[in-house]
Structures are given as C-alpha cells and as structure tokens.
C-alpha cells in the first residue's frame, strides 16, 4: 500500500558501486603516492613540530621529562 520512499528509483543500485570504485581508486593512488615518497623527506617532515623556532626557549615543562 504505502511504499517506502525512494525504494524504487531507477538505477539507484549503481550508487554504492560508484562510491566503492571512487574510494578504491582514490586509495590506490594515495598508497602509490605515500610509498613513493623519499625517506629523507619523510624524516624532514616528521621533525617539523620539534624544531618550530630557532630560538626555541626551553623554559617550562616537567622535571623528569
């Protein structure tokens, strides 16, 4: 009698498929990108938060840290 909304839109079943393909391609490209980065660059990048100013005042902090 009363149908659920949208259950019968033509071709709606393609949506999840498209979504998956988009994500899968995106993920593959990302993996390729990440693993083609040079190691030296990776290390340089990961050091960024630790060298944030040349003066780098060492005041404050924890006695044992």
């Amino acid at each position, binding site marked *: 009698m009363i149908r659920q909304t949208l259950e019968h839109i033509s071709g709606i079943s393609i949506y999840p498929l498209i979504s998956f393909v988009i994500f899968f391609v995106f993920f593959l490209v990302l993996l390729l990108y990440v693993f083609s980065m040079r190691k030296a660059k990776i290390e340089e990048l990961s050091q960024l938060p630790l060298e944030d100013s*040349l003066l780098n005042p060492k005041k404050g902090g924890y006695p044992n840290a």
Partner: protein
Amino acid sequence: MQADKFSYDNRIVRLFMIASVTFGVVGMLVGLLAAMQLYWPELNFGMPYTSFGRIRPLHTNAVIFAFIGNAMFMGIYYALPRLCKSPMFSPFLSRVNFWGWQLIILAAAITLPLGITTSKEYAELEWPIDIAIALIWVVFGINMIGTLVKRRERHIYVAIWFFIATWVTVAVLHIVNSFELPVSLFKSYSLYAGVQDALVQWWYGHNAVAFFLTTPFLGLMYYYLPKAAERPVYSYRLSILHFWTLIFLYIWAGPHHLLYSTLPDWAQSLGVVFSIMLIAPSWGGMVNGLLTLRGAWDKVQENPVLKFMVVAVTCYGMSTFEGPMLSLKNVNAIAHFSDWVVAHVHIGGLGWNGFMIFGMLYWLVPKLYGREIFSVKLANAHFWLGSLGIIFYAVPMYFAALVQGLMWKEFTPEGILKYPNFLETTLQIIPMYMLRSIGGALYLIGVFVMIYNLMKTAYAGKFIGEEYAEAPPLSPATHPEPGEHWHRRLFERRPFLLTIFATVAILIGGVVELVPTFLIESNVPTIASVKPYTPLELEGRDIYIREGCVGCHSQLVRPFRSETARYGEYSKSGEYVYDHPFLWGSKRTGPDLQRVGKKYPDSWHYRHMYEPGDMAPGSIMPAYSWLHENTLDLSDLKGKISAMRILGVPYPEGYEDQAEADLQTQANSITKNLKSEGVNTSSDKEIIALIAYLQRLGTDIKLKKTESTNN
C-alpha cells in the same frame, strides 16, 4: 641568508585557554544538573528556563562549542604559527575570532534556556546566530590560510592539513544544514522536511562529531604528542594515509544514525558499510599516536601530559571501534534510542576531547609561564579522578542501555509485551542514572583540581606574552628539487590546492548521499490522508519544539514487532512531508510519541503536563505547569502559515486571514471537551495548542485504516 626576527602571540592562546576552562566548568555543571534531573525531577525547579528539555541542548552546546571549541582554537593558535614559523596573519582577526566566538556562546547561553531553538541536534541555535557563526568561521579561515601564505616553512605539516579540513568541512556542513526560512527574529523553519531534513541533519550531526571533535584534535595530537614525548610521530606516511582516508570516508557514514527509519535502504546500507570501513583510518591514527611513544613508556609514567594523551588516544580508539559496531543493524536495533549512545558520546567527549585538552593545558601553561608545573602529584590526582569519572559514567550507562533495551523487546510466552508500561523500564535503570552522575561529578572535581594546579603554576611564573623567534624567509622555489616529481609538492606545499583537494574529498560523499534524495522529491509518496497541521496544531508543535520534548521523546516507530506492539503502526516517510523540521529524536528517555494521538483523553494530557506524577506515578518527566498559565502568542501565526506555504505546505492562498478563526474554533472545541471531562480552562492557553498537536500525532494513518475497513 639573513633570518627574519618576529614573535608569536601567546596572549590569544591564553584568552582561548581561559574561555575554554571557564565554559568547560559551566558546561559540565549544566550536564551534571541534567543528569541529576533524571532521577530527581524536582531539580527542574518548576521553571521553564531550567527544565531538562531546554538545558540539555545548553549542556551539549556549551561542551562542544564553548569548552572543546575554545580549546581547539587555543591549540591551533599556538601550533599553527610555530609550524609555519610566522606569527598569525592578523592579530586583529585573531581578536575578532575570539570575541566573536564568545559572543556567539553568550547568545546561545541566553537563547537556549529561553526556548529559542531549531530543535536540530548540535544545530539548535536560531538563524541570526547561525549567520554570526558563519562570519566568525570565515574570519578564522582567513586568518589561518593567511598565516599559511605568509609562512617561512616550505612544508605544510600534517597537523595543518587536519586544521584545513576542519575549517572547510565545518563551513560546508553548517551552511547546508542551516538553510531555514525565518518567520521572525527568533523563529525559523527548516527548509527541508521529514526524511530529507533527517538525512541532512544527521549528515551534519555525524560530521560535526567528525570535523569539530575529531579532525582538529587529531591535528592537535600530531603536534602536541610529539612535543610532549620529544620525539617525532611514529610514521609520517601513516599520518598521510590517515588524513586522506579519514576525511574521505567519514562524510559518508551519517545515515547510520537513521537505521530502521524511513530513510531508503540503499542510504542506510551505504552508511553502515562506510562506518565499518572507518575503523581502518581511525585505528591507523590511534596506532600512530600510541606508537609515537615506543621506547618512551617510562616517560608516560612520569609525565602527566603523556598520561592524559595516552588515555585520550585510547578512548579515541575505543570510541571509533564502538561507533561502527553501533552502526551494525542488529546492534543498532537494541542500542539506538537507549543510553548506549549517551555512553558512546561521553567516551569520546570525556575521554578523547577532554583528556586531550587537559594534556594540552598541562603542557601549555608551563610553557606560557616559563616555569615547571606547580604539582605533578595534583596533576596525577586529576588524571585518576578523570579516569575513574569516565568509568563511573560509561559503565552504568552501558548497563542501563542493555537492561532497558532488552526490556523494551521482551515478550511473554503468550506473545504480549512483558513490560507494556514504558515507565517500568525507566524505573529499573534509575540507580544507573545515579551512578552516572557520580562519575560526572568525579570528572568535574578533577577539573577543579586542575584549575588550582594551573593557577598556582601561572602565579609562580611570569606570562610570556610575546615569544621571540627567528627564521629565514622562504625563498620562492621555482624548480623542483633534484629527483623530485612535479606532483610531489601538490599536497604538502600549496595551501590553496590542499584546501581544494580536501573540499573535493569531503564533497564526494555528501553529494552521492544527499543529491538523489533531493532530486526525486516528486517521488516521495504523499499519503492521501496526511494533511497539513491546523493552525492550532502548528502552534502546539512550536511549543513542543520550544520545550525540547524531542530530547526525550522520539517520533519514529521502527518496523519491529516490539515497537508496533508498544506504539502502533510503524512510521512511513509520507507521514512526515509537512514536518519542518523533523522531530524523530535520537533518545527515548520517555516513550515514542509518533502514535500518541487519540490514545489518551484531552484531560489526561492536561493533567499529565501539569504534574506527570499524578497520571504516571514515579514518572521522571518534569512538570510543565507554565503551559497552563501562559497565553498562546498568536502574533507570528500569519507569518508561520505563509512561511510554511513557501516551503511547500499546501495551505490555500489567503489562508493566513482565516487561520486565527480556525484556530479559535479548534481551541474552543478542545476546551469544551476538557470541560466535559471535568477540567475548566480557557481556550487561549498554550496547553490547548499542545494538546491539539499531541492528539493529532500519527492519526492520519489511523484514520486511513478506519476508512478502509468501512469500505
């Protein structure tokens, strides 16, 4: 090369810090009050402004936008300039950001207790405040992107990517979900109705959690955790994967809030699948955070900053595992509408956000005041109070959810509901509600211990308002470094490109999910017997919204035998086509109201709203006696009718002029009916409108049934 000399502005960091802690205390106090009202209804104080329905959104908004929001700004305003080796783009915009945000919080703190609300969760604020939020958010964005443009560090660290994604996505979510048609300065109707409104709201609600409570704090984790541990993040590669997959996947998962609702099946399934997939990047992030401490666990024993952060990241892991589990349909069938969801958000809120904030505060205050923390012991005491608080909060809630969730579904061998009286299931879990508030109180005591410790630290030190630094200016790089491909610099160097890529990543999910639902608007089956609300019912509905009834009562009967036996026919999407906004709710502290119409006599509602305990002994519902005294305000009635017509509700042209007369007729008939049941009142009271609305709820379908049997 000559190094540039410049300074970092610590004053703005301190301002946000003070605001965050202050509103944190306020927000948690309100939360504690709301928690206690659930077993001690007298704490509603018999006043509209302090009743549960109005202060629940006050609690959620204060904690999310004032406590966590200000802490997010605090963290970013400290980390961003240092990562860019440049002061913030504009100190003036920083101040506008700060004071603007506090004004918005003030506006929320005034309007929510007054009952000025859109009723859409975490988006309750009315349209003028929505506009202010959008403006301040733009100011924040200009300041952030401007700093990136002026930066002296070529590479954009992954934390900043998270900040940018936060900014972009919150902007998109806020704007799309806030489309509403103003009726007056303090009243508006959502542009969307029913199923569509629900879909947009939970696309927003889910992603507000993702992009206001998660991504900025992941960015902060990638900065403050290495800082506190004095070692780089475990795997920078993993952080890149974490970032892109997380923002790409998160946006799709919203429909898992609407399982078994009248949302189309494909959208529900999409939400479930993407929720499960989300475990991967979330846990990738958690593992990356925890492994940063590999070989440094001895530091965790000694350093309270790391203790807080370790528990925070662990709670993030628990919460992001629990979320996907809750979105499995069989789990959701029991957990949805129960206290499980409340426990789940508090693992995230108290554990992940709260403990990250405390960790940042214990790290920042000594830095900003140039001295050691006043007492490591007190910080440890705070850590244990907070951890115990979380456990005492969450465990009783899980227990309550299981007990009540199973009682709702239990049948006797004869096939009838074992606990047909909803109240019986509520009374069963009252002790759990009491334990929960003890957990909350412990957590709050911990916060007071922290405030004392931090203030002692601050008074013993001297505030460093300007922190001097120097760095060589950025030379324009015209050629790629040797061996580097042209595309290498796309993500990690160009702020605008990064912003655009992040936007595209989050838009794909949103578009796939939302657009089909809007395109086929004409396909929504309108049920012939579903008619627009009468003017009196419309006014009653607005009272229902004002009092925050939606905080405890759902209007969505799911297609389960246990629900149709308890409440009646399950909900159909066609029933909601005139509901601007939708009022499905997300928590059943009281029973569902979708089919409450004509279930009780008018006088029952009249007496029940006056003193719930009279009609339902032991009821924990607050009394709404002011509805029996207040005169119904009709000044916006014409505006409301024409606004609804603009939104597509088929009121005939010129109906505005007739609406008030119709309203009086219906009100008089209810008063007459009440009189026959022994209640004397006049027809101009608010309660009459509310009764009209409640008695209408869900009856369209019932009427249809009667007709078909007659035929």
